[in-house]
C-alpha cells in the first residue's frame, strides 16, 4: 500500500499519544527553547523581506547565505526589479519535517504581475539565522 502523507501522520499521532502523558511534566521546561527558535527564524525571514524591500545590500549580505558580494547582491536586486517582484507576508512557518533544524517559511511573492507562494529556508549554521535558499 502506498504510504501517503496522511498514513504517516496518523501513525505518528498514535505514537505521540502514547508518549504524551509521560512527556507532559517535562514540557514546561522545554517551552522557552521551543518558542525562541521559531521566533528567531521568523525574525530572520522578516528581515530578509524588509531588506529586499529596502534594496539594502549590507542587510541582505548578512541575512542570506549566498550573497557574498555587493555585485551578487546588486544582481539579485536587479532581478527583483526586472521581474517587478515583491514579497507579501509570511503565510506559514514550520520546522523542516526531516529534522534538519531548519525552518521553512511560506511567503507570497508577486512576480511579473502574478502571485504565488514560495518556500524560503531559514537555518542557523553557526553564523546566526540566515535565509539559505
Amino acid at each position, binding site marked *: 500500500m*502506498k*504510504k*501517503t*502523507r*496522511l*498514513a*504517516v*501522520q496518523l501513525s*505518528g499521532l498514535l505514537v505521540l499519544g502514547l508518549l504524551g502523558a509521560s512527556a507532559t511534566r517535562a514540557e514546561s521546561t522545554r517551552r522557552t527553547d521551543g518558542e525562541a527558535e521559531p521566533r528567531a527564524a521568523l525574525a530572520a525571514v522578516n528581515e530578509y523581506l524588509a531588506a529586499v524591500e529596502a534594496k539594502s545590500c549590507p542587510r541582505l549580505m548578512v541575512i542570506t547565505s549566498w550573497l557574498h558580494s555587493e555585485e551578487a547582491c546588486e544582481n539579485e536586486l536587479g*532581478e527583483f*526589479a*526586472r*521581474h*517587478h517582484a515583491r514579497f507579501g507576508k509570511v503565510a506559514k512557518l*514550520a*520546522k*523542516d*519535517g*526531516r*529534522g534538519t533544524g531548519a525552518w*521553512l517559511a*511560506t511567503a507570497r*511573492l508577486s*512576480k*511579473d504581475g*502574478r502571485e*504565488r*507562494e*514560495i*518556500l*524560503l*529556508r531559514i537555518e542557523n549554521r553557526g553564523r546566526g539565522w540566515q535565509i539559505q*535558499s
Partner: protein
Amino acid sequence: MRKPLSVPLFLCVLGASACAVTPSSDPEEANAPAPTDFPAATNTSPAGTAGTLDATVTRDQISGKFDNAADSVTFTSSSKGNDVYEVTVNVHGMTLDATFSLADKVASFDGFSSANGEDTQIQEEDRAALKTFYQAIQTKAGKEAGKTADMLIRAAGIWAETGSSNQLSQRVMGEEGRGWTLLCDRIGTYVDGTHDDWDYDRWDAKSSYHVLIGDYGGGTTYYWRNNAWSTQAYNHASWPYEYGNCFGRCGDSCGSGHVYSQDCLDHDGCVRNGHSQASFWCDDEFTSCMDDFSFAPNCY
C-alpha cells in the same frame, strides 16, 4: 528517427517562415551560425551513472532500490487500473509521491518527511541524488519501457528539476493543444523560445532566443558568441543562438524519453540564461512544464 538537418537549418538561418522566426533588426543580434557550424548529433542515451540499481518488475509494478556511494533511493511505480499510476520515491528521509490519471490528464504530487509526514523541501543534495537516480532508471528501462517504468521516469524527472522554493504539493491538469505544444516535427531545427519579465515582454529580442532543439551537444549547452560556439551563458542577450544538452527536452539533460515541447524549451531557456535551477525566477516556467512532462507523448 531524427529529421534531416540541412534543409530546415538552412531555411532557419535565413530567417524563413518555415522556422517561424521574424528576423530582428536589432544591431546587437548575435550573428547566426552558418550551416557548416551545425553541431553533430551526439549520444542520445542518458549519461552513465555509477551505482547499483535493483528492480523487480511485474506486469503492474516496478519497484526497487538504487544505491551509489552517496545516496540510496527506493522506488515503486504501480498501475491501479483505468490508466491510473501511483509512483513513490524515497530519498534522504523524504517521501515523494505522485498519482497520474492518464485518462483524465490529472496528476497530484506531494512530498513530505518519511518519518512524520511533515512538510519538507527538495534541496540541492536531493536534486543531485534524484538526477543520478533519474539517469540510472532511464538507462535501465531503455526506450521500450513499460508504462509503469515510464511514469516512474517522468515523476523522477520532475522531482529532479524541482526548485527549492517550489511547494511539493501540486495538482497538475493537462490538455493537449492548450496544455502543451509538442515540437516533435521541429527536432533538428532552430525553434524560438522566450520568457517574459518586467523589462521585456514575450518575444522581445532580449528575452528570446533561437534554440537548436534535439539530442545535440552532449551534457553541455553552447552559446554562439563571436562566430564560435562557447560554453559561456548569456544573460538577456538579443536573440542569441544556443544548443546542447538536449535543449527543449522535458527532463534534466539527455535521456531515454523524448518529450520535446515549447514549455520545456522555455524552462531550459530560463535556467540556461543566467538563472540556476534552484532559483525561484524559473519556478513558473517549471510549473508550466509539469503537464507536458506528465502527459505528453514521446516524440520518438
